[in-house]
């Protein structure tokens, strides 16, 4: 049961894979070390969120945006993350744009009649809400 925020775990399998890929071949990780790293990652997200939120509030915004997170990274002395994160953001934005175009095209083909009311809403300000585009996760949770 997640009683504290730090207990919200990230999936073990993914954490393990990231660790293994970061380390040389043949290196193992003890269960305790893996679990501690996973927990550390959760704490990192919480800390980064709090930091990013300060920047949002400074900017009188109620919505955390990517820029706030980048500012938080610098504040937390993880400047070396900023460049790769910016790159990831670029790719992510391109992908999102591509998906929107694809959806628009699909709509045009599928039904010319009932168009876009719902679609157009999605096109506006997709930077605003925390909306999940991916389907429900059923990732393995082995606690």
């Amino acid at each position: 049961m997640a009683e504290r925020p730090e207990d919200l775990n990230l999936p073990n399998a993914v954490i393990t894979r990231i660790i293994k890929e970061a380390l040389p071949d043949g290196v193992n990780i003890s269960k305790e070390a893996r679990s501690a790293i996973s927990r550390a990652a959760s704490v990192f997200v919480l800390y980064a969120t709090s930091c990013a939120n300060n920047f949002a509030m400074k900017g009188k915004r109620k919505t955390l945006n990517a820029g706030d997170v980048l500012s938080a990274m610098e504040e937390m002395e993880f400047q070396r993350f900023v460049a790769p994160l910016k790159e990831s953001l670029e790719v992510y934005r391109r992908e999102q744009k591509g998906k929107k175009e694809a959806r628009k095209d699909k709509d045009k083909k599928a039904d010319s009649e009932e168009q876009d009311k719902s679609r157009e809403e999605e096109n506006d300000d997709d930077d605003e809400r925390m909306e999940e585009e991916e389907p429900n996760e059923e990732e393995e949770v082995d606690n």
Partner: protein
Amino acid sequence: MAAAAAGAVPAAAVAAAGAEPAAAAAAAAGPGEEAGAGPLCPGPLRLARLPLARVKALVKADPDVSLASQEAVYILARAAELFVETIAKDAYVYAQQGKRKTLQRKDLDNAIEAIDEFAFLEGTLD
């Protein structure tokens, strides 16, 4: 495999991700791990393998946060991945010093104590 590997240097990441990202992404991504990437996206792909829903749950756990953009959640997920890589590598240095090929909890503790950027973790992992 290629798409999943991430170095601290963007160039390396781009090079690694450039090789067959679609196939690699399909192989590397387990259920629900893709951060909304299309199946056939060419070019440098930096998918977040950590599921955004879990990251979002952590963000929402902060009572001071009202809303976070989708991009913010995505970047947090990516940052968490970079963090995991970084701390694993830093801890591994201590395992090497101890002539071990298995990363242990104490290696992590040593890294946290020694490295300033990890100071925020002190006292949180028990």
